[in-house]
């Protein structure tokens, strides 16, 4: 037996399906050929290693995702395949060419891209109607963003100062309203004390 012949029979030998003369010929070749013996040991070793490896289990939600993606059974879908000649040409065009573009993930991605660009343009003071290739110059875009960010910072600082002033006025007013009842109570106390004194004076007269 040659090394090439052994290579073909080795799988069957490892499976245990090799019998009779072929098996004894293979074993006698193994005893005289260190390279083939090494190969056989490697193959047997790896197959034994596979025994220690657990099966890869899919996550439970995968089944739900697949059934959600294709929920009605192929019988239902087969009727709506693009190759169906009974469908009108518009349905075939939109169902075939644009089907992948009309998937929710593509539509969502496209919407997010447009939104991002519009926000960026607004932030950089680029008017979509006057948009020219020169407006997309990175330097110009950067200057626009820088300028706008400074303005926002100034506005924020002004707002903060105004807010501080308002809070200060409010707290001052609160202090005054807190003080007022005590003052009025004091004045009332003075008045009530003054009245008995006046009545006492009247009785003495």
């Amino acid at each position, binding site marked *: 037996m040659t090394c090439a012949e052994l290579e073909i029979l080795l799988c069957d*030998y490892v499976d245990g399906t090799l019998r009779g003369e072929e098996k004894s010929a293979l074993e006698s070749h193994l005893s005289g050929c260190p390279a083939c013996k090494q190969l056989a040991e490697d193959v047997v070793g*790896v*197959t034994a290693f*596979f025994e220690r*490896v*657990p*099966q*890869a289990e899919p996550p439970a939600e995968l089944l739900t*995702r697949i059934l959600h993606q294709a929920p009605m059974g192929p*019988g239902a879908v087969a009727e709506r395949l693009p190759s169906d000649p009974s469908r009108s040409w518009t349905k075939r065009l939109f169902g075939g060419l644009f089907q992948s573009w009309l998937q929710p993930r593509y539509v969502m991605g496209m919407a997010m891209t447009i939104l991002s660009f519009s926000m960026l343009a607004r932030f950089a003071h680029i008017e979509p109607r006057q948009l020219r290739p020169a407006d997309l110059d990175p330097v110009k875009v950067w200057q626009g963003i820088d300028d706008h960010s400074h303005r926002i910072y100034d506005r924020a600082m002004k707002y903060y100062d105004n807010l501080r002033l308002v809070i200060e006025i409010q707290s001052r007013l609160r202090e005054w309203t807190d003080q007022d009842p005590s003052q009025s109570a004091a004045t009332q106390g003075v008045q009530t004390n003054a009245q008995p004194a006046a009545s006492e004076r009247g009785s003495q007269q």
Partner: protein
Amino acid sequence: MATVAIPAAKWSWESPYTQVRTSNSLDADVQLVERCLSGQEAAWEDLVKVHTRRVYSICYRFTNSDPEAQDLTQDVFLRVFKNLRSFRAGEGLFVVWLTRLTRNLLIDHYRRTRMERATESIEDQVTALEENTAAIARTDGMVAGREASELLQAALQKLSPELRETVILRDLEELEYREIAQILNVPEGTVKSRLNRGRAELAKVLRRQKIRI
């Protein structure tokens, strides 16, 4: 006369896959497909439930990525969903048809993502290697379970796609040589030759990482 000690549990006279896949299960597949084609929603659910694990497992072992394997499994079933009418029960087993479809999708994916893999961060590879080495140090080279699975995953990625798919289909999915030959569209002799080479390369990779095989 030199003989190689062969583990008896798995490598019995009859392939375990033949033992598991009885004629009843084959009939069940064909019946499920027929019921699906007649528009029964429950049959489609059963078909997906029965075969999701196999498809996911092949995809996961091949790509070494759970999210990619999940996406590919979804794509496979979407393709099954659309092409089930092209399956002919007389021309072969449903499992072979399904696995061929999965394999074609995996090869497409492999070609598409070749550039991304080439630019994969070296840092990630170094981290994975360190983690593997730490795992082996803890177990004194005799790894099993999840660690064995992770090490096998890393080792499988070192193989060429031809050798990798052959090893996965035979050693993990336990398909017959004849079925693998049908799936890969190559002669049985080529399947056996690739299997030997793939197993030998795996042994070298595992031994290099000080794993006892």
